[in-house]
C-alpha cells in the first residue's frame, strides 16, 4: 500500500457507492419487432386500429382505447408536428448530448400519437407547439434496430399546425389535409 493510500485510509468514511443494476432480457414482441425491422430499413411505421382507425407508433399490437388487435401496418411520413417540448439545461451523467438541447413529443404525419425524440438544428427559443419538423436520418449503412437511426428532427419551412389538428394530419401532411 502506498503512502497516499495510507493517508486516504485515515480519513473517516463519509460516503459509499451504492449502485443498483437491473438486468433484463428485453424481448420486443411481434408488433414492436416489425416496427424495428422497418426502422432498420429506414421507414417509420405504425399500426392502425380496425375499430377506431387511430394509428399508433410505436405499435404495441393492440389499440389501448378499443383493446383489439392492430395488424394493419402503415408507413408514416418523415415529417412530423411538435406536440410539446422541453429545453433540457441540466446535464445527465453518461448522456453524451451537451445541454441545452430540446426533447420533443412529435406526431409523425399519418399517426395519431406522439413519440419522444430530439429536436435540433434549430433556434431553441423559437421552437413552438404546432411547428413542422422532419427526421434527419443517419447514413443508411449505419441503420440498426434502433430509434436513433434518426439522429434528430429539424424545423421545416411550413405553416404551423393549429393545436386542434395536431395528431390528425394524414400521411401526406399539409398536402393531404382536406
Amino acid at each position, binding site marked *: 500500500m502506498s503512502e497516499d493510500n495510507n493517508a486516504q485510509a485515515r480519513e473517516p468514511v463519509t*460516503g*459509499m457507492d451504492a449502485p*443498483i443494476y437491473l438486468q433484463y432480457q428485453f424481448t420486443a414482441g411481434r408488433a414492436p419487432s*416489425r416496427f424495428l425491422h422497418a426502422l432498420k430499413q429506414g421507414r417509420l411505421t405504425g399500426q392502425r386500429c380496425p375499430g377506431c382507425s387511430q394509428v399508433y407508433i410505436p405499435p404495441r399490437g393492440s389499440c389501448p382505447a378499443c383493446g383489439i388487435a392492430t395488424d*394493419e401496418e402503415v408507413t408514416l411520413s418523415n415529417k412530423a408536428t411538435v406536440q410539446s417540448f422541453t429545453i433540457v439545461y441540466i446535464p445527465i451523467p453518461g448522456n453524451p448530448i451537451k445541454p441545452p438541447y430540446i426533447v420533443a413529443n412529435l406526431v409523425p404525419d399519418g399517426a395519431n400519437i406522439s413519440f419522444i425524440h430530439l429536436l435540433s438544428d434549430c433556434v431553441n427559443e423559437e421552437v413552438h407547439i404546432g411547428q413542422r419538423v422532419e427526421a434527419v436520418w443517419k447514413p443508411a449503412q449505419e441503420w440498426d434496430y434502433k430509434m436513433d437511426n434518426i439522429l434528430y428532427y429539424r424545423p421545416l419551412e411550413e405553416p404551423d399546425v393549429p393545436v386542434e389538428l395536431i395528431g390528425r394530419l394524414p400521411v401526406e401532411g399539409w398536402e393531404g389535409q382536406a
Partner: protein
Amino acid sequence: MTDVDVLSEAFELGFTYTRSTGPVMGRFLTALRDKRIEGIRASDGRVIVPPMEYDPETAAALDEFVEVGQEGEVMSWCWVSEPRRAHPLQQPFAWAMIKLDGADVAMIHCIAATDEAALHTGARVKVRWADEPRGHISDIACFELAGVAP
C-alpha cells in the same frame, strides 16, 4: 400480415448512486475498515449494532459509541441453497440474525458454512474480514462457525 423475427437482447439498467453516510454510519463504516465493529448505546442502556442515529424510544440523537466483539450468537437464520449473482457469497450460505458479544440486538449478515446441517440457532459465529476493507458492510466478508457450538 407476414410473420416477423421477434427481436430480443440483453439490457442493463444501472442506477449508479453514491450515498452520504452521515456521521454515525460513517463512523461504523470507518471502524469496519479498521476491522472493528462499533455499536451505539441507547437511552435504555442497550447497545445497538449497527448504530442508530436516534434513540428508538426518545428520538434523541445518540453519540456513545461502544466497540463490540467479533464473535456472536445466531438468533435465527435462513439457508440459501441457490445464491443469486448479487448475493455476498456464491456458494450456498445462510442469512442470519447475529447478536455480537456486547451487543443487545442482532444484526443481519451472512454465514459461510459447509451445509445447512452445520448450523443451528444458538450457534457461535465469528467474523471473517475482507482482504481489503474499504469502509463498507462487505468489509465483513461473512461470519463463520466459531469452533464447537455450545
